[in-house]
């Protein structure tokens, strides 16, 4: 047996040292020389991440430049799946810190599962400062979570003009699959209602990109370079926010809609629908409860009553009959019918609203005092076809083409329609109902505003237009909306004069149905309407209508006001139009006076 000497032990040691050095050097050679470039690339990818810089949406202004929708900075919480170390730690931690449901977070992550793991998934939007602080102080424990400061849609007027402005909210799964939203990714905001939806392509800017260096927790350490986002284009509306505010105030706690047009251009000056919703709630990621309250609300706050609400027009429809009857010579200024408070037809009696009757009524008093019997007679003489024809040429029962999505068509019945829908012939008795805007006549307030415009503007109407022009972020005008003629009917001067005198009398003559809403400063013309509502809600009160234009001589505004279950048009709807006109022309007079003063 060979004795081990102390020196042989040292030889072993030296051998071990040599082996160690060799192993280490081979490994380093492999790592740093053979695979060095690959490893260098991995380390770069590790730290460089491309992040989206969200472009601010275009601003929406009213006609005098007041901001109706803009963007403000908000804090949004994201999870970058790639940076998660322990899934349940991050998800549970975040759920606790943000008071959200764990399943909601997982749903959001699932929705974005087709994106690469480095794609940040938005978990909660617009969190308050205390939640920002909580997350920042706990972020070591929730790797993968981050807070981004991003532009958020902001509607400074809250519920005002909500139905016209609409709202934006996060794009959903179905939309993402649709072709038109090809350029969108999960978490993007998209206009879902109103102008925000209609002008999405203009309002949406082009998102920028920045390359940032991030640390192992996905925190940004520094920005390497940035492609600035391009903000969206601005919309300048025809809306006059002063008038809008007056209408909104007048309609507070009421249900209904009000719209005011410039009859010379079709520009929409006021568009109010009540009850309304707060678009800000959608912009900051509406909560499930909030959505439920709005969606299940029986008063339908999401319905734009002006363009989507269909109601029997009631007596306002008499204007259509008067126009047609005079124009076709069926009646003239002096044609009279006797009103005894009722109109027997077939085996029933159609009543006039005035129990005692109006006596002998010609067209002027028929309009002014809204005599039903007069128009029963006119209606029968005209026949349903001619009524339908006139209504259609004014644009009633047709889309007005207002620049809002989801407009409803309404209906002016005709024998053809009835045959097609019910397979039944038309009965004369139905014409009697239609004559006073009942029966199967269903119109939207915007259509009746077109009727007022039609009279005000000598038989010419324009497509109602909310947006006046689109302006780029640099201030360049991209698009100006030219007036689009909807109807252009040559009417006899005599016809127009008689109807306009009648409508002027409604407001300005004693006995006129809207005499209570007359003004000292300016002459307003109008027509009241009280339509029987189908539903028995609120004690079955009738819908109150008022259509108007002003000034009577040289109209510059056409108005429709509708109050659901408001009772009489004269008491419920006319004061709203009065408020608008009063305010509009008081201001105008003041300006005129000031100018004359200056000139002096």
């Amino acid at each position, binding site marked *: 047996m060979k004795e081990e000497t102390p*020196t042989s032990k040292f030889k072993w040691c030296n051998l071990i040292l040599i082996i160690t050095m060799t192993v280490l050097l081979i490994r380093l050679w492999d*790592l*740093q020389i053979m695979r060095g470039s690959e*490893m260098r690339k*991995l*380390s770069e990818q*590790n730290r460089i991440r491309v992040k989206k810089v969200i472009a601010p949406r275009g601003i929406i202004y009213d006609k005098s430049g007041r901001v109706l929708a803009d963007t403000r900075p908000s804090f949004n919480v994201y999870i970058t799946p790639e940076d998660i170390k*322990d899934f349940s730690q991050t998800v549970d931690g975040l759920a606790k810190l943000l008071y959200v449901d764990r399943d909601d977070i997982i749903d959001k992550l699932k929705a974005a599962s087709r994106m690469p793991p480095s794609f940040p998934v938005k978990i909660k939007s617009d969190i308050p400062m205390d939640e920002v602080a909580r997350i920042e102080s706990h972020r070591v424990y929730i790797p993968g979570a981050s807070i981004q400061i991003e532009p958020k849609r902001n509607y400074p007027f809250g519920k005002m003009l909500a139905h016209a402005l609409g709202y934006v909210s996060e794009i959903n799964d179905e939309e993402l699959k649709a072709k038109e939203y090809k350029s969108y990714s999960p978490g993007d905001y998209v206009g879902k209602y109103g102008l925000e939806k209609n002008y999405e392509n203009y309002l949406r800017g082009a998102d920028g990109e920045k390359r940032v260096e991030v640390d*192992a927790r996905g925190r940004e350490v520094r920005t390497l370079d940035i492609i600035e986002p391009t903000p969206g284009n601005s919309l300048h509306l025809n809306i006059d926010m002063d008038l809008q505010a007056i209408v909104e105030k007048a309609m507070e706690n009421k249900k209904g809609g009000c719209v005011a047009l410039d009859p010379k251009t079709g520009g929409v000056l006021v568009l109010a629908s009540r009850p309304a919703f707060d678009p800000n709630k959608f912009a900051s990621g509406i909560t499930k409860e909030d959505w439920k309250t709005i969606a299940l609300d029986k008063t339908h706050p999401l319905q734009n009553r002006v363009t989507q609400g269909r109601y029997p027009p009631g007596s306002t429809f008499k204007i259509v009959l008067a126009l047609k009857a005079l124009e076709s010579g069926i009646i003239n200024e002096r044609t009279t019918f006797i009103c005894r408070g009722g109109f027997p037809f077939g085996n029933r009696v159609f009543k006039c609203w005035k129990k005692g009757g109006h006596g002998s009524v010609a067209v002027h008093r028929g309009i002014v005092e809204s005599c039903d019997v007069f128009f029963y007679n006119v209606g029968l003489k005209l026949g349903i076809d001619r009524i339908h024809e006139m209504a259609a040429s004014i644009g009633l029962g047709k889309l007005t083409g207002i620049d809002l999505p989801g407009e409803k068509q309404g209906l002016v019945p005709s024998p053809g329609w009835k045959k097609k829908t019910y397979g039944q012939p038309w009965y004369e008795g139905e014409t009697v109902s239609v004559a006073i805007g009942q029966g199967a006549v269903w119109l939207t307030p915007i259509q009746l505003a077109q009727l007022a415009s039609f009279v005000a503007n000598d038989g010419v109407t324009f497509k109602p237009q909310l947006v006046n022009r689109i302006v780029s972020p640099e201030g360049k005008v991209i698009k100006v909306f030219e007036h689009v003629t909807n109807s252009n009917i040559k009417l006899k001067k005599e016809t127009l004069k008689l109807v306009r005198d009648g409508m002027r009398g409604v407001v300005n003559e004693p006995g006129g149905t809207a005499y209570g809403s007359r003004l000292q400063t300016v002459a307003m013309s109008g027509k009241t309407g009280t339509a029987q509502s189908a539903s028995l809600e609120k004690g079955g009160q009738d819908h109150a209508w008022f259509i108007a234009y002003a000034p009577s001589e040289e109209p510059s505004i056409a108005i429709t006001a509708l109050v659901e279950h408001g009772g009489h048009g004269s008491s419920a709807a006319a004061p709203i139009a009065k408020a608008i006109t009063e305010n509009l022309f008081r201001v105008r007079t003041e300006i005129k006076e000031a100018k004359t003063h200056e000139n002096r």
Partner: protein
Amino acid sequence: MRIDKRRLYHLDWYLIFNGLALFGIGVMNLVSATSSFYSGSLNFIIKQLIAFALGLILIIVITHYDYRLIAHHSKWFYLGGLFFVVLVLIIGLVAGGARRWISILGISFQPSEFMKPIMVMVLANMLYEKKRENIPLSLRDIIKPMVWTFVPFILIVKQPDLGTGVIIVLTSLAILWFVGLKKSTYAVLISFGLLTPFIAWNYLMKPYQKMRVLSFINIDADPAGFGYHAKQALIAVGSGKFLGKGFMSGTQHKLQFIPEHHTDFIFTVFGEEWGFIGSVVLFALFISFIHRCLKVALDAHDELGSIIAFGVASIIYLQFTINVLMAIHLAPVVGIPLPLISYGGSSLLSTLISIGLLLNISTRRYMF
């Protein structure tokens, strides 16, 4: 304290300069490694330098007393060390899920680190006579050394500080090998060695330790946890390429992709910033240093000095090798510092004490 000029002349300057070179590289590397911390580098560097200054004083004190005297009293150091190790288990500070530090008068230290040189002295003192007589150790002879090793080992692993425990056991085994073993003893130790993995896996290891082993075997088994860190460490070292990214320019550690990059994973910082060239120089310095330690053992005046010097060489060799192998994914992740390079006062002091023992032995090599 009178300094003997002849001893000063016999000081092992090779060892000193080699050690200083390593420590210098360590401090420089630490500046970069700690620069990304919120508190900045300065705080770390100052603490490290204070520990170094303290270590120098200890070296002078240790060198002053004859190592035979120190080894003679090593039992008391051993008991003192054990006392603190037990104390850690009772009043230790918890950090990162382990109870490894105790704080006395505001200074916190890690007693397990000091058990390394103490174990070397105790075992040397126990075994040098056998070595002198050149009798291979029988099974009976190694019972006492093994008991003395396993008591601190179990206490330290309980903290848990598996890294230090492993170093202590391996150093003890190296010393036993160095003293000489009978064939039967080899046989028993080897068969124990073969059994250990099974016993450890089934009865001793904690789930996170098993995870480390699993992720060592398959780096992608746990991409979010230990495997992830191991991968990031590899990327760091590899991305250094031939010349490295340059001092202070490493991104992997600055961006916190690697945990403990200023302590156990310090080599990833160095490898990333100094590349292949720098790493070769660093390794050469370590190998040269260890080789010099072995030379002290070889030239020692007596077997006691020889065993102590060999033990110290083993400690440094084992820590260096395992630490680097771990960083380049050739060994599972275990908390072992890189001597003179890693941040940590206790580890640095322990290494300096060991070097003090070496200097002590080398200056007395011509003693009669």
